[in-house]
């Protein structure tokens, strides 16, 4: 039978029951919309990460000692165990291919005061003067701090944090959390955050107010270094910059073997912890993996709603077959073969599936666009999703229509003609 004619008949059967058809397709609409929305969101997140991190500061590595929990990001600030001694940092700096290495540690304050304005609960990053060079942070005003001096650098966000902005030469006072010890410092420089934007910056902490202080004299966390048997400062992270990006993997290997074979950290670290030496690229990979896992998980949930939608279509086509038993009998009497009947009902199911996936795609794209706009991500849309959505609609239609259509086709015309 003529497909156009079959389409017209199936379409008419759908439009004659508008409410029923709408409710039937709702399951598929929700399923497809959810998949498209979450995939859009996931892809936009990944695109943001790739845009902001890839190709940017790829010559930096982050060294830390992590407890091995699957899927966690090792570079987030103040995570990991403080195990890297001054000697370790010094030795890493001298590894072939390393341009510079700086320790990164920190302590919490109960509050930071500037003039008569106090801001509570700030974290002070302690490091060495080389930090800003390694981390690609420009000092926009003043200069970097000197070791052994009561000097600090704040970033622009921290400078704006106080009423009356902080400028170079101002005095600030911070209160060490726990001991309540008051520490004075002169602000000698204002640093700009690295030129990274978007979500990753907040993941790494770059867009938050930050105060950088020299380890000497502000950092009090020390251990007896196993190698020298002397008291040394100990840090949770080491930031390493390589002199040649091309050789970053080799350097990574050398840093790792130093850590595992000769470092203080190898003795100091807890049994279950492992060294992480991560390049930017690997961090991007990690974040991408996490967001892909997340997307897959949500998509899985959405697929369940697609299955429910397919069952809904199957159900309504079965009802439709029962309702139209007599019509099926008539069509058979006037010459319809099994395949004509199958075609009619299968087309009806496929039309419902396609309709659902088409509407679902639009709804999903709109939700995804809205969500990315709210979060502030670049919208990432790939046309292939819509091709997939149409194919899914087709498959849902076929899967849900096959049995009802088959059962319609095997209707006995004599019985069907007697059916009221």
């Amino acid at each position, binding site marked *: *039978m*003529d497909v*156009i*004619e079959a389409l017209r*008949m199936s379409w*008419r*059967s759908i439009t*004659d029951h508008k409410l029923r058809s709408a409710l039937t397709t709702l399951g598929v609409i929700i399923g497809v919309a959810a998949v498209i929305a979450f995939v859009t969101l996931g892809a936009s997140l990944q695109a943001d990460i790739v845009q902001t991190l890839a190709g940017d500061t790829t010559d930096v590595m982050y060294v830390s000692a992590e407890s091995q929990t699957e899927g966690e990001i090792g570079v987030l600030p103040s995570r990991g165990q403080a195990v890297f001694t001054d000697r370790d940092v010094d030795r890493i700096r001298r590894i072939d291919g390393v341009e510079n290495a700086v320790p990164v540690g920190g302590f919490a304050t109960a509050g930071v005061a500037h003039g008569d304005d106090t801001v509570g609960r700030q974290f002070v990053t302690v490091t060495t003067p080389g930090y800003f060079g390694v981390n690609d942070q420009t000092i926009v005003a003043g200069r970097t701090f000197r070791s052994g001096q009561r000097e600090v650098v704040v970033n622009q966000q921290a400078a704006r944090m106080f009423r009356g902005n902080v400028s170079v030469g101002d005095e600030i006072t911070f209160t060490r959390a726990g001991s309540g010890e008051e520490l004075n410092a002169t602000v000698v420089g204002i640093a700009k955050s690295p030129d990274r934007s978007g979500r990753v910056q907040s993941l790494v902490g770059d867009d938050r107010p930050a105060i950088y202080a020299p380890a000497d004299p502000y950092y009090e966390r020390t251990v007896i270094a196993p190698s020298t048997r002397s008291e040394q400062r100990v840090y949770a992270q080491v930031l390493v910059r390589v002199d040649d990006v091309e050789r970053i993997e080799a350097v990574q290997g050398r840093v790792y073997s130093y850590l595992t074979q000769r470092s203080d950290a190898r003795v100091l670290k807890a049994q279950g912890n492992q060294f992480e030496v991560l390049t930017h690229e690997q961090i991007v990979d990690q974040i991408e993996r996490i967001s892909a896992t997340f997307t897959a998980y949500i998509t899985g949930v959405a697929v369940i709603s697609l299955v429910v939608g397919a069952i809904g279509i199957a159900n309504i086509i079965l009802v439709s077959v029962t309702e139209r038993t*007599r*019509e099926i*009998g*008539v*069509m*058979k*009497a*006037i*010459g*319809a*073969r*099994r*395949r*004509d009947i199958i075609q009619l009902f299968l087309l009806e199911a496929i039309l419902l599936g396609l309709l659902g996936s088409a509407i679902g795609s639009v709804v999903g794209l709109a939700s995804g666009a809205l969500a990315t706009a709210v979060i502030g991500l670049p919208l990432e849309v790939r046309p292939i999703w819509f091709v997939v959505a149409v194919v899914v609609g087709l498959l849902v239609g076929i899967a849900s229509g096959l049995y009802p259509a088959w059962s319609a086709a095997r209707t006995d*015309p*004599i019985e069907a*003609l007697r059916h009221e």
Partner: protein
Amino acid sequence: MGDGTPSEDARAEAVVSLTGVYKVYELGQPVPVLDDLSLTLAEGSYTAIMGPSGSGKSTLLNLIGCLDAPTAGIVEIDGRDVTTLSEDERATVRGEKIGFVFQTFNLLPRLSSLENVALPLVFRGVAREERRDRAAELLERVGLEDRMDHRPTELSGGQRQRVAVARALVNRPTIVLADEPTGSLDSETSGQILDLLDRVHAAGNTVLLVTHERTVAERAERIVHVLDGTVESVEELGGRRTASANDRWT
């Protein structure tokens, strides 16, 4: 012909022929419905079948209409043995050679008159233009040229049955099977439909009418009385003879 047993001469012009047909339904135990029934319908003839309910006349109609196959015996349509055909093959024979008119019209509710009439041609793969032309022509013949785009619910009972008659003729059938075609109509409309069937017959079509009303049956050339699954008697009414096959109405 006339005694229900096909002779060599009758077979030549027979369009439908049943020879020694049995039909047994298995309803827990075998229930014989048709018992050694033989019947021949000549081309261009107009036959009425009468019989009490349970006599087997519906089953007989189903066999001639290729909706069912006999348990034993031979059913031939246009000289072709349709006894052993598969379900789809029977559907094809129905589409090509049979025109059904039902008591309850049995039009498809979502299709217009024109689409209903054209539907058998859809299943035969006739091109759209040709389907429409042919359906429109037949609707004109039954006097419904101004109701072509109406759906069945927008038509009266008599109009619906006229659409159904047009649909039965659209495939230029070998035989038109009318099963109680006036059973759902008032007497005046019934008369109109029977007049229409007369015209269909006069134009050269072979018509088989099943009814339990004597007055309706008397429109035919002969009445076949069926009882207990076999032909009890054949009553020749004489009178009208068919026109030649050359000026078939359709």
